[in-house]
């Protein structure tokens, strides 16, 4: 009784992997700074995280991203030269992602259950004649034994 659960858990693990979530968090932070990471850059972040390397992830920004950074100013009026993303315990990005994830789950689970249940019912009905034949065969064999053992008491012929 855990075939579907195992499939579900493996899918969750795939979705909830360090590289996938880490890359999502970094993407989230970069977008907050006005920089949209390219698919190649995201792949590079994922690859770095997959290897479980600690420390800095380095990749080149393209011209458009450079422009965005140069155009932006920090509080002191200086343009941002290096994009630095820090995470600490008070960071709320992970919480936002977790919330999205939970929301997604609460929607997807009832859908999975209803769809799988319809399939299971169909399969059960298809297999029912065979299942019932086996069950009735067992019942019939039991009744024969019962009749034999209780013949005198019950007056079975």
């Amino acid at each position, binding site marked *: *009784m855990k075939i579907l*659960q195992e499939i579900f858990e493996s899918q969750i693990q795939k979705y909830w992997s360090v590289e996938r979530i880490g890359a999502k968090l970094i993407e989230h932070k970069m977008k907050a700074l006005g920089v949209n990471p390219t698919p190649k850059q995201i792949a590079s972040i994922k690859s770095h995280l997959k290897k479980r390397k600690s420390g800095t992830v380095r990749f080149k920004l393209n011209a458009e991203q450079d422009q965005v950074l140069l155009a932006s100013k920090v509080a002191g009026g200086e343009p941002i030269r290096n994009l630095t993303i820090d995470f600490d315990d008070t960071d709320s990005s992970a919480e936002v992602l977790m919330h999205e994830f939970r929301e997604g789950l609460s929607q997807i*689970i009832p859908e999975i259950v209803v769809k*799988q*249940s319809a399939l299971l*019912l169909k399969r*059960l009905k298809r297999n*029912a004649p065979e*299942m*019932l034949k086996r069950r009735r065969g067992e019942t019939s064999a039991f009744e024969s034994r019962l009749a034999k053992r209780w013949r005198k008491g019950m007056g079975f012929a």
Partner: protein
Amino acid sequence: MPSSQDSQKGGGKEWDLLEAFLEISLEAGSDFNQEFRAEATQQHDHVFEVLTRLHARACQISSEILALLRAGHADGAHARWRSLHEITVVGMLIRSGGTEIAERYLLHDGIESYKAALLYREQSDRLGYEPMTDEEFQTVEARYQQLLSRFGLSYRREYGWAATALNKENPTFRDLEDHVQLMHLRPFYKMASHNVHANPKGVFFKLGLYPAGEEVLLAGPSDMGLADPADGTAISLGQITITLLMTRPNIDRLVISETLMTLGREIGETFLKIQLALEKSDQEMRDR
């Protein structure tokens, strides 16, 4: 005998559905028991202990109901459904109350044994049975007193194990039903009770008699009245199975639960359709 028409108006589909429902419930309970029995024993999981045992009993009663329905004993089947409903209500209460109420329920066996011992001592001579020795009785009585001092005087009542959970000195089955929100099944429970007790209603009212109140003494099987006990069985067996499975929910058990609910509805509708068709053709015969 009332109408003797072919009870297979559903072409046998109704039996297949009900039997398949029983088989699925039985297998789900058996798999669940096998998967978690060792872990539950190790953790002294009283809820698991009670629910698996209640579920096995529910499957056994459902099997009895199926046999009675097949033989045309709607009233007998309905009387058995009454017990099935009681099991479901108790199971749902244990599930919601958790380990404390489950332990109280299990230990309540000591109260029932004491009451049975009292009765046996009173009647053994008349029955010509060997009397219970004083030593045997004292052991049972000591256990009884021990339980009362642990759980209080209200524990000696029939549903004393539920007294604390329901906050009632002397809870009744009605209180239990109310607590688990199954009060809507009470009219059926009362109707089924007529087939258990020797009250006047039970003498006059029979599910197997159609039209109701007909001046016929039903003294054997009938092909009428199977819909209520069949529908009730699907509902109650489904409820206790789902109650058990949802103590450890996962996707597979959710899917099985949903499947049981769908199949249960189909069983109710199928039996009702056959019942109505039988009543209609019976009426047509009378009108001729």
